[in-house]
């Protein structure tokens, strides 16, 4: 069973959100998701300053096996992207919850996070798959 950190929020489409102390949010995909996709070979990220809404397909994780859309679990403005992924997409495999983060967002409305799953809820959702 893959790791599901309890301090993060989750979307059923396998993205995670970490609320930082400065009120911004960091987004990535879960260890379970990378395990399903296999070895990553390309990652397409949104641009800094892009305005994004919940459910937008904002990024693509492409593995040897398949290309998978990544949906934004939050609304706001992109303030940073993980440029290391350009040369090292395998970070999504080796460190999904750390070095494999995708982008950071200045949130429009932090209360939106309440619509996401906690670790327990996410675990239940993938057990049903």
């Amino acid at each position: 069973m893959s790791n599901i950190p309890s301090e993060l929020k989750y979307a059923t489409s396998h993205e995670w959100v970490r609320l930082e102390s400065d009120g911004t949010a960091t987004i990535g995909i879960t260890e379970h998701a990378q395990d399903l996709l296999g070895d990553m070979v390309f990652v397409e990220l949104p641009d800094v300053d892009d305005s994004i809404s919940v459910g937008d397909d904002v990024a693509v994780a492409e593995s040897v096996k398949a290309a998978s859309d990544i949906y934004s679990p939050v609304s706001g403005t992109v303030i940073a992207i993980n440029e290391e992924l350009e040369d090292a997409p395998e970070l999504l495999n080796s460190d999904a919850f750390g070095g494999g983060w995708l982008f950071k967002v200045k949130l429009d409305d932090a209360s939106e996070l309440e619509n996401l799953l906690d670790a327990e809820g996410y675990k239940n959702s993938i057990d049903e798959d």
Partner: protein
Amino acid sequence: MTNKTVLHAKHLASGAKMVDFYGWEMPINYGSQIEEHHAVRKSAGMFDVSHMTIVDVQGTDAKAFLRRLVINDVAKLTIPGKALYTGMLNEAGGVIDDLIIYFFSDTNYRLVVNSATREKDLAWMTKQATGFDITITERPEFGMIAVQGPEAIAKVGTLLSAEESAAVEGMKPFFGVQVGDLFIATTGYTGELGYEIILPESATEDFWQKLLDAGVAPCGLGARDTLRLEAGMNLYGLDMDESVSPIAANMAWTISWEPTDRDFIGREVLTAQKSAGDQPKLVGLVLEEKGVLRTAQKVITEAGEGIITSGTFSPTLGHSVALARVPRSVKVGDVVEVEMRKKLVKVTVTKPSFVRNGKKVF
């Protein structure tokens, strides 16, 4: 009913992720298929191919039967152990399967066919055997391990007895030799040097373990696919099937047209196709920008549309490559377009071969 090979427990012990492969539970990878791919290109890796179907064809008419059954001519085989890659066609000239035939004598041949097509292959061979004095014997009691890579032969060498070493010493590519319990062949599906070894099931686990101990990396079906695709080798079911002529699947080189009086199955249809010159052809495609070419994507050329039969990310080259069936007038060096995830990308046409012996070849 899921089949398991004799190495199933070994795969689990090495942390394999198992998948269903046409009724066989097989390893897709043991962690990272890209690392496994690199092991084969740079050092040595091994694959459990025990699921493949071994069929011995023996008897007075074995040679005559195979000269009728397949598009290449087994009469070309005169040195015991020599192997031949070819295709078996239906009457309409479509590929029932591709296979390797090992020659031992005019009355004794060994065929290795795909496991996914096992039942129809055996049924077809049995049907075509009418009137020939032969026996067709499936040999499921063997395991099969492919050891591939620049260090494969040396690493296998450390496990061989003096007699076995002497038997494979200096063996050229595409040969096989039976020595004691081992059938050792210089064949493979990766574009690297190496062996495919057929051995009794009872000895297979032990041999696999010794290879592990010798530093040979276990590799799954994922790496097997990226390696064969880089090498430009067809995968049955993707790059060709019963609706596809060998002429349209980069298999024309496996057709023996001479002698003209050899009446192989499909000959009439192929002859007509050849003179019409209207069959599409299988080419390579190279995408240098981001993205991965995938099976079934549409190819757009000035001469008309084509289709990607198999595509992948090439770990050796660091970008995507594909095999595609396109109109015959498309030429190597042409730039054509592929419809990929709602956009058109430009790709370059190459010969259908990308990497051999660790090196780019286009």
